[in-house]
């Protein structure tokens, strides 16, 4: 790939206006990182405003073989927004309009820079509902959610981002503007390109418009905290509830390691014998919810249930959620560096996975804290270390490899929500056999023969020695 020249910058300024093309060290620096805490300097940061501007920029990049990648909030956990080969960072935050909320057809049309929670507020004001709720929804953008196929706690009942994307406008790596899917639920014309682009991590094109499916907003929601004597009881509770024909909106769990982190914090009262807990939410018509919660308590009572607390109002629900929300901030005291993995295993195998994680933790003497979305088997595994300790990097890598191998052995997947990006490349082949990987590579090669679109992501590749990665520091 080529390096950017002054002539390229001039062309960019002509497309979007000089005020939206930034090359100062400060501007490059503030677009050099994401939530992985790694850092690579781009050559230029551009803030386009329209699909046509994006297409013109991509055409320029294609014509001169320049690396280019889209960026939303830059809040991803696997490095999707890192310019590992430098080049053009295309920030889509100016494209942040909600173009349409259609109550008759239950769809919304948005630009990629819309923050997820803002869309949710807007549709909820008219009694509609956009379910995917990644933890970062207050700042992550829908473009980023589509690129990574974001999930969240509500997915157990409502599914993930891909289940809500009906159609896309995409600028392909040659600068063409294409339209996938449409405004209807049913659509079998040609290949399902919409699903191809959802979760493609910005490697196949840049999404500039999204048509989303909406639901009617559930009338009411209730929250319950259930504490258990052991993880098996909690895991069995999850299966039992679902076998009992109840799909809760949310089924969050914390294991003993996570409970230990928050026990004793202000306002959190968890007895010593509580070694696992579930936060269970149900939604629907208000009158149905109390019987549903009572039925859940009845079902899980024999499974080592210590206590079930049902929130009477929003404040009490918030207090129950505080237990779960306090975990992440409390982790830092265990180590300054966090390896936050988002493995997923079949629901019923969660206890086996937790036991394996405990074994890995004690064998390598590393704190591993586990919590997450029990309802869909998505476990957030947090390995907390201090990388300044000699030999720590190798120990962490060993732990991660063990974790991913175990995950695959249990029929799971190395990433449920965060994607592969840069961080998980070493593990993609644990899960995908080589013919499958080869198909994916050929799709990439067909759409992006020059390899300019978010280069260096998903697929492990040899470092290009002529243009080495410009990582300045590992933060």
């Amino acid at each position, binding site marked *: 790939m080529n390096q950017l020249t002054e002539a390229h910058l001039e062309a960019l300024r002509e497309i979007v206006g000089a005020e939206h093309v930034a090359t100062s*060290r*400060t*501007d490059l620096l*503030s677009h050099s990182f994401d939530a992985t805490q790694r850092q690579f300097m781009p050559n230029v940061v551009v803030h386009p405003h329209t699909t046509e501007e994006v297409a013109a920029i991509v055409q320029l990049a294609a014509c001169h073989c320049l690396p280019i990648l889209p960026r939303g909030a*830059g809040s991803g956990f696997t490095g999707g927004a890192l310019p590992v080969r430098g080049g053009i960072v295309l920030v889509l935050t100016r494209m942040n309009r909600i173009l349409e909320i259609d109550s008759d057809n239950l769809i919304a049309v948005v630009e990629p820079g819309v923050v997820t929670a803002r869309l949710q507020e807007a549709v909820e004001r008219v009694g509609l509902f956009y379910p995917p709720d990644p933890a970062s929804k207050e700042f992550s953008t829908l473009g980023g959610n589509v690129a990574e196929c974001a999930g969240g706690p509500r997915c157990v009942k409502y599914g993930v981002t891909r289940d809500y994307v009906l159609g896309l406008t995409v600028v392909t790596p040659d600068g063409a503007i294409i339209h996938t899917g449409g405004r209807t639920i049913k659509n079998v014309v040609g290949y399902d390109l919409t699903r191809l682009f959802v979760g493609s991590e910005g490697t196949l094109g840049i999404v500039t418009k999204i048509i989303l499916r909406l639901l009617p907003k559930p009338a009411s929601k209730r929250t319950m905290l259930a504490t258990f004597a052991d993880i098996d009881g909690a895991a069995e509770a999850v299966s039992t509830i679902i076998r009992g024909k109840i799909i809760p909106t949310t089924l969050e769990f914390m294991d003993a390691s996570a409970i230990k982190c928050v026990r004793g914090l202000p306002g959190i009262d968890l007895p010593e014998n509580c070694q696992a807990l579930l936060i269970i939410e149900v939604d629907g018509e208000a009158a149905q919810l109390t019987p549903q919660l009572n039925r859940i308590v009845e079902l899980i009572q024999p499974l080592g249930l210590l206590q079930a607390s049902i929130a009477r109002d929003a404040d009490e629900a918030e207090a129950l959620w505080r237990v779960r929300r306090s975990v992440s901030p409390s982790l830092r005291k265990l180590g300054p560096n966090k390896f936050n993995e988002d493995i997923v295993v079949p629901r019923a195998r969660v206890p086996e996975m937790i036991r394996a994680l405990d074994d890995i933790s004690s064998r390598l003497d590393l704190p591993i804290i586990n919590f997450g979305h029990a309802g869909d088997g998505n476990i957030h595994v947090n390995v907390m270390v201090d990388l300044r300790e000699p030999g720590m990097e190798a120990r962490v890598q060993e732990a991660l490899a063990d974790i991913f191998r175990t995950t695959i052995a249990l029929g799971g997947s190395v990433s449920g929500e965060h994607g592969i990006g840069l961080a998980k490349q070493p593990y993609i082949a644990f899960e995908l056999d080589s013919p499958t990987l080869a198909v994916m590579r050929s799709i990439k090669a067909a759409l992006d023969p020059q390899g300019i679109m978010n280069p260096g992501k998903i697929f492990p590749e040899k470092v290009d020695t002529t243009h080495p990665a410009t990582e300045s520091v590992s933060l």
Partner: protein
Amino acid sequence: MSIHKQLSDYSRELDECVRCGACQAQCPSYLAIGKEGAAARGKIVLAAEVLAGRMELDEEGKRDLALCLLCGACARTCPNHVPTDAIVSALRREISEKDGLSTIGKGVAALTGNPRLLGTLVRGTKIFSSLLFRRIPETSGLRLRFSPQNLQDRVLPPLPRRNLFSRLPERLQGKAGKATLAFFAGCTITYLYPEMGEATARLLNRLGYTVLIPRGQGCCGMPALSSGNGALVEQLAHTNTAAFDTAAFPSEPIEHIITACASCGGALTRFYGEMQTEALHDFSGKVMDIHAFLKKEGCIDTLAALPKNSDRVKVCYHDPCHLKNHGITREPRELLRALPTVDYVEMDGAALCCGLGGTFSASQPGLSRAIADRKIAGLSASGAELVASGCPGCIMQLNDIIHRAGLPMRAVHTMNLALAALEEGLSDTAILHSGHPPCQNTSVAPWATES
């Protein structure tokens, strides 16, 4: 040696930023312009590079630092509570030490040698010639906030003839056995909205407290802090601690120092707390916002016990950043709900910043206005006649927004509403029977501004 922390004193905190991006969701500047350099995360990365000696601040870096309102929303929302507001303050001090003060900061820098602080009004300075400035002391933050070039097209309250200190004695005697409180008024209340300060002091006095209004108090230092003028902040901090010290009032211990200006309260607690002097920390520890104080003392319940009026006025509430980001959001709402004269409605976007941000509105007028405009929809949809708040700066800005948008409402201080309600209900209520002489000048209508 300076009592201020240097950038290097924050190296541990800089390390604690995990680049998650949560700060974006709360930063008024980021929400208005959508560029990463505006949010805390961008500034932390920049500060870390500067501290590591890998780069010097370029013009764009200074531009990004100037985008910060020092509202503290990022620090509150950050999972690791990285104090970006304090770090930006430290960087601004370093910039002004190296490059000199900005144009805005220079007005005050030229005057810092003047030892006279507040108390007497200084007339006829050459730098600020408007009528407004002839009545405001040279070291007051108001001079930074309302530089003449920034006054065009702005709605300002008519300048009161008498400031707070000439409207209230230095001491309002309370009931025996009740605590003694001291009132820190701040420049905006003292000189622009003395009726807000008077309402606060009289309300506390009605509730039985002895209230001191020390004459030696000065500007809290927030505007000087904002413009990177560390020396002036230090000078003002010493002036204020001395004014409220036991040496100044030897006969009685001051239990709390009450503020009715959210920004002053934020400066006196958060930023004095960042400075490295024990005396300041003692002072800082006593400072309490009026709403939080009334809640703590059970006074809100007292007000709630008053019989409700039949013709109540519809009121909504605006969260000042320096209350919200200090965790004070429920108390003012509870107070308003408790008032028998008020029909409280929650406004959409109540927690959105008003965009004033001290010197920010002078240094970044366009962005300040863009942030302010985000309030219009919520104010308009609320249907309220009054929007109450706990910060005179916000109230002034809200009135400016309301005027520009042509909305049929006004912004007022919660304390004016509270005092009016209390006075209306006083005769009926045994709990409030105090026995001390009736206050003078109690004809303050809830939303009156003295002209």
